[in-house]
């Protein structure tokens, strides 16, 4: 390791701030025997509350798998995940579903919105699924910040890619979740829209203390984060604080990507 990276195990950082999400000994294996793929081969990581973390790594390094396990979308083969104080592996499907609805926000790379619902309906969907109504003041604040006021009545196919991602971010932020997970949120966008989306995620962390964990393979996207966690071959391969595009690129080169 010739790169100047501080490789600090996630556990050690917990003392500084409260943990929003924590994983210990996380393993995920696809298939069995000879053909088994270890997408996650023992990951220990902690994401502090109020922080914007980027997960980076080469393609196939297990980024998406890690995010799915942290978010309760997928079950790990071994290990444990805590959302705040709640251990996720012991939860039944319905309990996990309700937890996702109330405490986790999602922004995906594509196919984020339901085509039959307009923007407003998409935004309030997770709350409504739980039979809740949005707090009007907070709703207005989120909409204003994301610049969606004029677009609320539009269906997804009437919105541009950037606008669709902004609607997805609004939906993720509205329930004030413990953590927002974003998987390549700028992957399908041109660079200007991408920068806009990243800026919005960044400002939601800054201004409202929202915890955000974002998967990306783009070093300049990772530069918006407070911290970068590097993955390689299903293991933690590095941890950068206050990253810049250059430091991230250097770190990645060190992984041989």
């Amino acid at each position, binding site marked *: 390791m010739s790169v100047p990276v501080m490789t600090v195990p996630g556990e050690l950082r917990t003392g500084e701030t409260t943990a929003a999400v924590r994983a210990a000994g996380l393993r995920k294996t696809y298939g069995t025997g000879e053909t088994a793929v270890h997408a996650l081969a023992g990951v220990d990581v902690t994401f502090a509350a109020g922080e914007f973390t980027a997960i980076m790594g080469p393609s196939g390094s297990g980024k998406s798998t890690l995010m799915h396990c942290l978010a309760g979308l997928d079950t790990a083969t071994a290990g444990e995940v805590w959302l705040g104080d709640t251990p996720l592996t012991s939860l039944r*499907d319905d309990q996990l*579903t309700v937890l996702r609805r109330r405490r986790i926000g*999602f922004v995906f790379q*594509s196919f984020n919105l339901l085509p039959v619902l307009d923007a407003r309906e998409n935004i309030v969907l997770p709350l409504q*699924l739980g039979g809740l109504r949005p707090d009007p003041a907070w709703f207005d604040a989120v909409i204003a910040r994301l610049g969606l006021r004029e677009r609320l009545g539009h269906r997804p*196919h009437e919105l541009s890619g950037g606008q669709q991602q902004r609607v997805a971010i609004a939906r993720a932020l509205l329930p004030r979740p413990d953590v927002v997970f974003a998987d390549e949120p700028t992957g399908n966008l041109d660079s200007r829209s991408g920068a806009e989306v990243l800026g919005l995620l960044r400002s939601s962390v800054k201004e409202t203390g929202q915890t955000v964990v974002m998967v990306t393979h783009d070093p300049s996207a990772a530069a918006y984060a407070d911290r970068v966690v590097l993955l390689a071959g299903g293991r933690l391969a590095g941890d950068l604080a206050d990253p810049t595009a250059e430091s991230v690129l250097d770190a990645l080169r060190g992984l041989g990507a």
Partner: protein
Amino acid sequence: MRSVVLAQLRTHAARLIASTLAVVIAVGFVVATLVLNETSRSTVLDTVGARYVHAAAVVTSEGGSLADDVADLEALSSVGVVAPAYEAGVSAEVPGRPGSQYLSVQSVADAPQLRWEQLSSGRLPREVGEVAVTDRARAEVGDVLTVSAYDADGEATTSQATVTGIVDLRGDPQAGLFARGFVTEAQARDWGAGFPAELRIAAGPGFGADEVLRDVTAAVPGDAVVRTGEAQAERAAAALMGNTTALASVLLVFGTIAVVVAGLVIANTFAVLLAQRTRELALLRCVGATPRQVRRSVLGEALATGLVASALGVAAGIGLAALISAVAGSNSAIPLSGVAVPLSAVGAGMLVGTVVTVLAALAPARAATRVAPLAALRPVDPAPLRSRPGVLRLVLGLLLAVPGTALMGGGAAMPDVRVALPGGVLSFLGIVLLAQRAVPPVVAAVGRLAGRLGGVPARLAAGNATRNPRRTAATATALLIGVTLTSAFVVGAASTRATATAGLAAEFPTDVVVEGFAGELPGSLENTLARTDGVARSAPVLAGTVAGPDGDLVGAFGVDRAEAAATLRSTEDLVLPGPGQVSVPEWLADPWAVRDGDRLTLGGDPDREVPARQFTVRVVDADNPLLLDATELRALAPDASLGQVWLRLADDDPARQLDVLDRITDVVAEASPDTQVTGLIAQRAEIDEILDVLLLVVTGLLGVAVVIALIGVGNTLALSVVERRQENGLLRALGLTRGQLRGLLAWEAMLVAGVASALGVVVGGSYGLIGAASVLGQVGDLVLDVPWLQVAAIVVVATVAGLLASVLPARRAARTAPVAAIAAA
């Protein structure tokens, strides 16, 4: 392209299950109908025609005796033997059986080759004093029957005959009517058989039926008809088959409905399958497939599906027919034994199934050729599919529906079914076309309402149900057709029943009439009957004689108006006279030259010297005697006595009322043996029973169409689930529980099925009422009746069945892990 077709079939076999099932059911239905019809025909031919098929020729005569021709014919070289048919009717006492029974006797041919009777035991008679009987006679071999034969003057001659054998008529539909006896020609003549009107002829050695036919025709008198045995058997069978052929055509109408509904389901399946494969098809186009080749590959897939499904359907139909034949057997109204499978039925089944499948796939195949090669390169378009409004369909629908409805309305008003029927067919076609337009907005409106009640899943379901209007419309239309026809029939039958009941009530207003053969009834009988369980009301009717204006004595009935009216179901035809009034039947009004409102003087018994009285006449259309007030009849005829008792039974189901009728008969038989009990109640029960059976059968048949349509609902949902895999995964990620996801699909199914069945019931109900009005209005006074409970049941059953149809797709959708759906993006 063939390799592509085969690969498609292999990979998507599961998705074609619904189309296959729809074709199998529809084809199976058609084939079963044809096979049953043929089975019934051959059963009848085997049984009714049995006596003829082995004869070379059969001579029949309308009037004259053929007895004298026997010897002449037997002299012909081409003729072997001639068997004249002697028939007689006798009454026979079977030992150990009460009373005597009617025995229809026919002669057995002397020549073995003309004997057709099959024996289940014993042998045929050889001499006078012997008889073989059918098992209906309930006699056993060895029994000695006491037979009374009657001559033309009614003089009875009694003789004895020993039972030598039991004849088995197998599936002969006429077998059950009465017992039959088989005797020698001599015995038949002894028992009063007239001249033979039929000769069965066997060919001489070395001669064929043609020669026999030619020679015999030349030899018999001109008014006799000569046919080959085969032809005569066909003729006998045809005479009996008239009804079953009509039944077969009715069944085929329902078969056609099933086929049409199946066609809609298939078209739908293919449309959805191809929509899913847009990218695959575009890729084919990219790598150089021409539109023609794409279309051929789609049609090839349809052809293969159609052939396989039709073959399965044919097998299923034959199996079904065999099952029905085995269960119903020869005791049913339609004679069935074994199965006879005509090649035409197999051919028709294969053809109908395959052609319908290919035709149904034509439109989707054309749409598939319009896929641009570039579609393969574009990312998945999340925009909802929009279909063009189909102006042609709208115009054509209106052009059919509006005049059709007007014609139907006219037919109901006239009333003339010959006007209403074509109007109904036209407007129904129009409505089916318009349904494509009307269903989506209705589903959307109902969906908004459901969204208020059912929360987010219901609201999403409403959106989903209308995002592909054409598919929703096609799914709903299939169900709409089935439900419309079912409810039209249910409502029509209810009105028929109500009209028939009202008509019968008017014609026979009394439930039960107890009447003495000899005139008089014991005075206490009325009291006894009134106390009988199940009798609601009773009224005594006095019978006496009065003198008419011409001085002749005529019979007259006297009733107390209030008491008698309470027993009547209807006073439309039977008007009860009050004091000073008399109802005069037309057969008396004519010779007396009186009309409504005239004054009429009636005198009393001349021996008694009672004063005459004046009455106001009301002429009635009935064959009763004069009817007047009981007190006045007693004044004119002081020795008038109890002539009839009118009874009204408590309202109950027909079977229970028949029990009451039995009780009344017992009571009456004990009190006064020569008394008869008549009344409408038995007929009413019979009509009810016939209508019930008819309703059950037809509803069952239409149920087939509804079942196919529901398969379509399940199919559409299953395909939607595949299509919306990502979407459902996203919903699960965002916090939709498995239960909520199942609920979403259940709502979607219920919306489509509920709207289709509600619309179907409204349209069908109107058809039923209009149909009843135009048919029954011609016959008599119309009474319309809507069986609300049954109509509601149709909607509920169809909706719940739609719900059930969503269970499997919903389970599949709910099993998908959210991450799998997202990863597929």
